[in-house]
């Protein structure tokens, strides 16, 4: 019952102003209208207390915007989320967020509302997007009772689709950063990882353009085809 009360309780705990903000979140545009060259994409990276999709919690959100094929430094997002009684796990050691920092972080409700307003109607881009999408969806459901309808695109899929000759299988962000020889300034905090992913994103946008992919819908179509070719090899 505790879980139930947590979910319901926090959404009912929303202040009137927060309820208003939740209602005001905008609807999405169809993917076919979203052109790669001049669209807006939110590149996101999360840090969590661990890798368990049901138990672990989002502790920080970093996001970078690609708009008109450029990373816009005036649109940067990072919030550390305030969490009570957090256990020190491997993730905390990797990300270097000290429990004391979490203790001074933002109220999760405010942080998540800020984030959704920041995202607006834009589709999201992440490395291993499936993980980020599910963690974020759960956090939004629990804190805001909000179902996030946005599309997520996975850079870990787009990169091998557009650059098969790299011959990188199940490669991580570091592998692709190494492959494209990106000079990444610092790593392993949510905003720096989002930045690295966004730089990869800029290169991929150019590759997509050269391969005749102009909209997100076309990209989605190509990805579906690519996933089918990948499956038999996986099932072996």
């Amino acid at each position, binding site marked *: 019952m505790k879980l139930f009360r947590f979910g319901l309780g926090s959404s009912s705990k929303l202040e009137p102003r927060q309820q208003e903000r939740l209602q005001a979140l905008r609807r999405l545009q169809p993917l076919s209208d979203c052109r790669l060259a001049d669209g807006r994409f939110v590149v996101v990276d999360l840090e969590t207390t661990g890798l368990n999709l049901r138990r672990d919690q989002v502790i*920080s959100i*970093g996001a*970078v915007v690609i708009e008109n*094929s*450029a*990373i*816009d*430094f*005036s649109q*940067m*997002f*990072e*919030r*550390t989320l*305030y969490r009570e009684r957090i256990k020190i796990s491997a993730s905390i050691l990797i990300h270097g967020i000290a429990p004391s920092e979490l203790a*001074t*972080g*933002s*109220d999760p409700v*405010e*942080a998540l509302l*800020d984030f959704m307003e920041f995202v607006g109607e834009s589709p999201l881009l992440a490395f291993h997007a499936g993980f980020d999408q599910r963690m974020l969806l759960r956090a939004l459901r629990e804190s805001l009772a909000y179902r996030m309808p946005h599309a997520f695109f996975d850079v870990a899929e787009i990169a091998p689709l557009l650059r098969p000759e790299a011959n990188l299988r199940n490669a991580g962000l570091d592998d692709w950063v190494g492959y*494209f*020889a*990106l*000079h990444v*300034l*610092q790593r392993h*905090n949510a*905003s*720096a990882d*989002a*930045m690295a992913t*966004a*730089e990869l994103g*800029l*290169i991929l*946008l*150019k590759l997509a353009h050269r391969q005749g992919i102009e909209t997100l819908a076309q990209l989605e179509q190509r990805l579906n085809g690519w996933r089918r070719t990948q499956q038999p090899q996986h099932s072996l």
Partner: protein
Amino acid sequence: MSKADVFAKAGKTAVLQNIHGTMEFLRKFPPFNQMENAHLAYLVENCHLRFYAAEETIVAPENGVVQYFYIVKQGRVYGERSASDTHGARSTFEITAGECFPMAALLGERATRTAHLASEDTFCLVLGKPAFAKLIALSEPLRDFAIRGVSSLLDQVNQQVQRRAVESLGEQYSLDTRLGDLALLQPVFCLPSMPLNRAVHLMNEQHVGSVVMVDTELHPLGIFTLRDLRRVIASGIDDLTQPIARFMTQQPFYLPPDASAFDAAIAMTERHIAHVCVVENGRLRGVISERDLFSLQRVDLVHLAQTIRHASRLDMLAGMRIQIRQLVDNMLAHGASSTQVTHIVTLLNDHTVARVIELAIEDMGDPGVPFTWLCFGSEGRCEQTLYTDQDNGILFEAQDPDETARIRGKLLPLAERINLDLAQCGFSLCKGKIMAGNPEMCLSRQEWSRRFQSFILDSTPEHLLGSTIFFDLRVVWGPTDGCEQLRRELLEQIEEQTLFQRLMAENALRHRPPAGRFRDFVVSRKGNDKTPTLDLKKEGLTPFVDGARLLALANGIEATNTQERLRQLIEAGIVDAKDGSAYEEAYQFIQQTRMEQHQQQAREQLPYSNRLDPDTLNHLDRRILRESFRQAQRLQASLALRYHL
């Protein structure tokens, strides 16, 4: 602060992570490293990051008025100018991480003259024109850089050199300091009627080595120094109450407050004095002493010059080479420019040569015929570093071949001896035998004249090489008239001989500056070297030296020093003032880099070499060196154009 505010603040500081990282990156490069934090943050917060694939155009003349300021974050960008006269496009420069463009076009609110293309996959930080304009108004270092470009970087190098000096010597001191700014104590002065003993008492009381005699209007009339006192006492004097006017040196040498410490040092060396009055509008403002100038240095310039001039034995002169090296070390450490250092080295070398000649004459007896000791090459151009070969000769006057042979016979043994003595003093013997002891180099004025004429009229490769050495001639010792006459003839002949000028121009293009298109520097391996290097002298300095010589000789300019030639070429309107001063700065920087390397090699007891591995330079020096080589390329390009090569 409410809880919500605290949360908001914690959230906001976190936003800065990527901004902060990018600022840290920019802080590694000038001019961003000099910008205020808030200004740099404004720059980063307002920019975009864009990706350009290899060979993609970033900005080009056809894009119209430039709308963005670009900083390379990663990768390389090259400039390409479509040249209508030559074959197709020509690449002009290369820009790497931390550098920005297109400054001139942005400031001029015009299109770029050069297309900027990515030479490999490249990321650029891009700032819109309104934000750039605001930033230029806010940030002085950026403004300075935008307007003065590489020149402002040179200032930074000088600051850097001086900072290094501060580290090693613990106090800042520059030879460029205005005399008026050097903390001059109230000068000690008195009326000429003051008795000698009271004047000395005054000096003793004030702990100074000199007292200046002035009239009631403070106009300096004379100076009396401790050295004068020694002379007075030694001459045996009974009455110490005689007026000081009897013993003072009249009309003391003075400089205006705007003169530099360097000017004072040079004056002291040339005039063998230890005190210089500082006079403004005819009135005494202060006195600067040798001790004031060189109080930090173990070895002082003036003392050194005097010791050289009064050395009684050759081994004393030879021993002084070490001290000269220390002096140069100190001067470089104190932020002296390469021009100042070569000037001092030339001065001290001239003193040494003169003293060697005098000692040789004392020892072997006067040959009984007047002669002039000439020097050529870098010595002739007053561009010697401490490590140069002898390039010298003798000029004498003779009526006919018989007399010529007779005088040559008299002078040769002396000349040979001087050459050997100079070798002992550290001037290595010339492998090409350009030394006065060689009968070919000990000639009458008519013989020199004939030789120079053959160089000009009959341009064999050997003659061409000869002209690059001999046409930089200068007198070190003896009467100067003969040499001046020779020079006038030379200039008249060259002015008429356009074919010779053209050949010299070809020759001046022989050594290509080592700046490349796809890499910063063109380096090569020499012998068994592990690391590839470039030649600072041949590839860096020679293009300037050859270019300035050609233009000077072709336009009747008598100066032999490369920088002086450039300055006179500007005055005569032959070289554009901006171009000329850019050449001069570039030349000076390469020379400075070379001298610092030589000093370093001497300290480490390595054989000296002009070859440099550019990877050993710091970022700033590296970038300026590359710019300097580009200036050499520009000079060569202008020669090619002028002489239709």
